[in-house]
């Protein structure tokens, strides 16, 4: 599916030949920086935008030609878009009313939704009289009430403060598990994506770079962008020297379990998470480095060290071990990484 805004020289390709397959009852997250096309993708699913090419299928049925009000899909908007002239319960029952459901059903479902988001006591309050967190829950209840097949969430937590956001993350996950509805969640917050999702699609520049479980995305990034966007990472320019072996000029060699299929002598970019690096006394490591800085972070300590080729690496050591405290600036150290923790990036090395 593609989406182009405008035409001719001014045309902006918001989505470039994107294809996703989202499973039933899945918590699927579109993760990427602003302007990457994730919201456009969401709006295409909702029907607010028409694809320039391609189609939106739900249970094998083509939704592309249907207006938003005929799609069994509901949206939680970024700024909630609650109806200001209605009470909380009127907002929640709106969708059911429009679907022409019987009165007693509307009443019971609305009551159930109010209970679900814990707002029973506020049913008759106006939208302007409640807090941001409460508005967020009303928006959620309003979108869930018609029991859509897919719930779309457009950065629904971005307007909340950190504390509330953490609570709502857990609550959202609970609601998704309880209702069994497929959630498509858009965010630029990697933490949010990692904690809540069953699967994540990382997007940039209108393309989907990698789709996988949070663990896959974090441990096995395939693109430099994915590696850099989620968490901290060390990137090393190496040369493939044989089956799963990569040489760092003047430093030594690393092994990886990734089957990159790179020919001998080809340049390869390796990615290693700081917490996967074992820092050892100089005598016991094959690979060497010199500590350039040690930064204490409470639960862990970041050891910055320089390789012989001048590249600076970071290792994250948990503070429950004694050795974290035993390194000081200027020390020569040894280091190692398990081959399973070394990712070979597939996009062009630079």
């Amino acid at each position, binding site marked *: 599916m593609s989406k182009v805004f405008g035409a001719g020289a001014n045309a902006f390709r918001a989505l470039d030949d994107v294809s996703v397959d989202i499973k039933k009852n899945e918590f699927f997250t579109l993760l990427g920086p602003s302007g990457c096309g994730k919201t456009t993708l969401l709006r295409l699913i*909702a*029907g*607010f935008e028409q694809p320039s090419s391609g189609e939106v299928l739900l249970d094998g049925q083509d939704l592309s030609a249907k*207006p*938003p*009000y*005929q799609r069994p*899909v*509901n*949206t939680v*908007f970024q*700024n909630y*878009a*609650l*109806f*200001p*002239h209605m009470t909380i319960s009127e907002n929640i029952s*709106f*969708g059911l009313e*429009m*679907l022409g459901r019987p009165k007693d059903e509307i009443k019971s479902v609305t009551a159930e939704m109010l209970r679900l988001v814990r707002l029973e006591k506020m049913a008759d309050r*106006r939208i302007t009289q409640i807090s941001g967190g409460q508005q967020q829950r009303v928006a959620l209840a*309003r*979108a869930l009430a*018609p029991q859509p097949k897919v719930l779309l969430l457009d950065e629904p937590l971005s307007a909340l403060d950190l504390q509330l956001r953490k609570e709502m993350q857990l609550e959202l996950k609970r609601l998704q598990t309880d209702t069994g509805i497929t959630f498509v969640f858009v965010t630029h917050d990697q933490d949010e994506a990692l904690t809540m999702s069953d699967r994540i699609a990382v997007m940039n520049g209108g393309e989907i770079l990698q789709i996988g479980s949070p663990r896959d995305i974090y441990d096995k990034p395939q693109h430099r962008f994915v590696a850099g966007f989620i968490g901290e990472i060390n990137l090393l320019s190496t040369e493939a020297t044989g089956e799963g072996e990569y040489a760092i000029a003047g430093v030594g060699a690393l092994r990886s379990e990734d089957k990159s299929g790179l020919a001998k002598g080809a340049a390869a970019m390796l990615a290693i998470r700081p917490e996967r690096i074992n820092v050892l006394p100089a005598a016991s490591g094959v690979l060497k480095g010199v500590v350039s800085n040690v930064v204490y972070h409470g639960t862990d300590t970041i050891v910055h060290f320089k390789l012989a080729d001048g590249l600076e690496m970071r290792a994250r050591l948990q503070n429950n071990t004694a050795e974290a405290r035993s390194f000081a600036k200027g020390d020569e150290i040894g280091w190692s990484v398990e081959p399973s923790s070394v990712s070979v990036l597939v996009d062009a090395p630079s």
Partner: protein
Amino acid sequence: MTRAGKNTLFRTLLIGPALLAILVFMVVPLLLMAYISLQTRDYSGGVVWGQFSFEAYIRLFFERELDDSLALNFNYMLIILRSVWLSFITMVISLIVGLPTAMFMATRDRKWKAVLVFMVTLPFWTNLLVRNYAWILLLRDHGTINSLLLWLGVIQEPLPLLHNSFAVAVGLTYSFLPFMVLPIYSSLEKIDLRLVEASFDLYANRWQTIRRIILPLAFPGIVAGCILVFVPALGAYITPELLGGGKTLMIGNLIGLQFGAARNWPFGAALGLFLLSLVLISLGAYARRYRSNLESA
């Protein structure tokens, strides 16, 4: 001087000129008018100062027979009722025409919006008198509309389009339509488009979205438009004078007559106050009825 004192002084200075203007140009004349309405008329115009009389108010409803007894007289009531009726019709037609117009305008591109708003205000650049004369040319027996219909063979005789209530209603609607369109447009323009998307998302089709989301949110603008059309239409002078042809009088013309040809200042003043109370009563009724909607929006 304390900070609070300074603020009070500053505020008084700021609001002072406006207060003074209202006092001198509105409150004083109103009191003067109330006073005049309770005086005896002077047959050559003006009043006999200091000679109190309720004659002007009695005249609104009664007629003095030769023997000085009072008989009910509906002539003036009829004119007042006609004024209210014509203003109401004007308001309703303006609403029916103005609402879709405002909706159309509010949903255009930014560039188009500016052009359209300008076009709505365009008639204001021409004098109201001239614009009403233009309608005479259109509506009279040998005017544009009748000539066209005769030529097309739709009618055999010219339709009586001018010098009746119809002509006045047309003229009033034409004159005051922009006052309906602009406030509705401005309240529609402020509506967050995401609310419309949310409504579509929740299975409301176009019509349901207009009825359940857009109209309630545009309600303050609709009320403002209705008031801005109804109130000035009630006191219209030029339009009924020209298009009503002296037969279809409205309160404004009646008042004008009292201060002019009829030389009955107290009655004119009484009519003026009656018109004012009519406006205040209808505004009060409006406010009372729709207070809750206005507050929520």
